[in-house]
């Protein structure tokens, strides 16, 4: 009975789905967040403040608000929904990729801000030195900026991953509660509590607690002096 509660198929599939979602989201956030953070760190354009504010919005908005608007724009009548349908992809809400889109937006500030801080801290001089040593902009980015910003990437990766694992409101709004597709650990816990299955809820919750602690511990070990929110 005990092993059943720990390793039940529903729990396992919720954990596996959560890990997949967080991994895909984190990888996508590196791809999307790095250029945004680089631009925010370097630009003197007036758009810097509005774009920075947009990226930071999920920090203050209730997740249900983000989820609601995503549901509207990605739904069959929404502009993105129309686009995905025209491309033959169907509609995104209540699918794994719908969750990915929501998670990317929701976790964006947790990746962009550490990266932006890391890029800011590098300053102008190493880039100028690289230019006088014949390195073009891309070359400089990969040979100087990436290695120097490594602590920022570690922080960003850990925070982005962990924050995606912990999301609930956005998932519930745009993902619903579909086993193997959108039922992540946080939703599963909610289900258990609703069904008064406190033992199962305990195992998953304790697991999340341990996971979160380990993640933050890693973060502080990697970056003992780094700034973080």
């Amino acid at each position, binding site marked *: 009975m005990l092993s059943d509660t720990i390793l039940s198929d529903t729990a396992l599939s919720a954990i596996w789905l959560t890990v997949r979602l967080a991994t895909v989201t984190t990888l996508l956030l590196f791809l999307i967040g790095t250029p945004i953070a680089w631009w925010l760190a370097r630009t003197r354009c007036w758009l810097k403040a509005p774009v920075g504010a947009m990226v930071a919005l999920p920090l203050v908005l209730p997740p249900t608000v983000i989820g609601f608007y995503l549901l509207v724009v990605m739904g069959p009548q929404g502009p993105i929904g129309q686009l995905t349908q025209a491309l033959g992809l169907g509609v995104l809400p209540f699918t794994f990729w719908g969750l990915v889109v929501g998670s990317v937006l929701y976790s964006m500030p947790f990746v962009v801000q550490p990266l932006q801080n890391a890029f800011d801290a590098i300053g102008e001089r190493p880039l100028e*030195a690289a230019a*006088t*040593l*014949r390195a073009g902009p891309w070359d*400089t980015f990969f*040979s100087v900026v990436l290695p120097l910003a490594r602590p920022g990437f570690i922080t960003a990766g850990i925070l982005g991953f962990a924050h995606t694992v912990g999301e609930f409101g956005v998932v519930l709004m745009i993902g619903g509660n579909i086993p193997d597709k959108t039922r992540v650990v946080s939703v599963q816990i909610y289900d258990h509590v609703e069904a008064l299955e406190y033992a199962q809820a305990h195992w998953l919750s304790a697991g999340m607690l341990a996971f979160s602690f380990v993640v933050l511990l890693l973060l502080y070990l990697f970056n003992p002096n780094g700034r973080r929110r």
Partner: protein
Amino acid sequence: MSVAGTIRARFRVAHPGFALDVDLQLPGRGVSALFGASGSGKTTCLRAIAGLEHAPGGYLSVNGEVWQDDSRGVFLPTHQRPLGYVFQEASLFPHLSIRRNLEYGMRRVPAAARRVSLDQAVELLGIAPLLDRMPDRLSGGEKQRVAIARALATSPRILLMDEPLAALDLKRKNEILPYLERLHGELDIPVLYVSHAPDEVARLADHLVVLEQGRALASGPLGETLARLDLPIRLGEDAGVVLEGEIAEIDADWHLARVAFAGGSLWVRDSSVPVGQHVRVRILARDVSIAQDAHTDSSILNILPACVEQLADDTHPALALVRLNAGGAPLVARITRRSAARLQLHPGQAVWAQIKAVALVG
């Protein structure tokens, strides 16, 4: 417009509170010093030459190659300019070992264009023992030597140095200056050297550009430029000239060395510089007096025959500056106007220059 063997730089930059407006023609060899107080525009000028700053409407050619000509839409980005740049702080890459720092630029230069080998750069700057260390384990002076070697290893057509010694204390500075003199002697790479330190300029420069508030007050060979009376050029606190010569003999009994230069010889204190060594001496105007006869009854050791070339007022109304020509070498003497009147000094007059103090500067 572009002449082989010269560097032509024309820039106009206007920032609020600061303007740079220069049109320089510099020799394509030797060390040209850009000298001036902070805020005079010398660093901006150097950064514009490197392409780190884009001065719109500018023109720059280096030994026949046009790097910037905005009237024709030419502007090479910094990484496409075959230059070396040494910043005031060494700016080594902290994540790379000294060896990898040195290789960083060299690897990005096509093999066919490499003329300075890594070993040569390492040997010139004396950094062989440091190669496997990380930059944070080095002293300020060592870092700066690595930075210079790193720039040289790219086989630059021109080496730009922005106050490379300003962040170092006197001891470190004296540790690096001999290496800079070696560069000067052993490599045929023109150097543009930005500095506000008179001693560095006196030691290293062949050509002097004096900048003040974004404008070039003077530009010419070091000796001639320092001997100009029409410009308020002071290397440091006092007017004076720099002469080049070599150690011709050493008088061990009296601990003196004789420096032979174009216009004769000067005795200086022996500081263990070997015979035959190329040296520079600095003679301040206040240490030169003028006599109509060669006095042998004076304590002054260095008395040279000279010809009066020009007289000019000095900053104080009691004083005058006199430019002398000692067998081709320019000297400047500061005397009182009363003495000038009493001696009836006039251009063309033959006199004796009595030189009370001569400083060996390197």
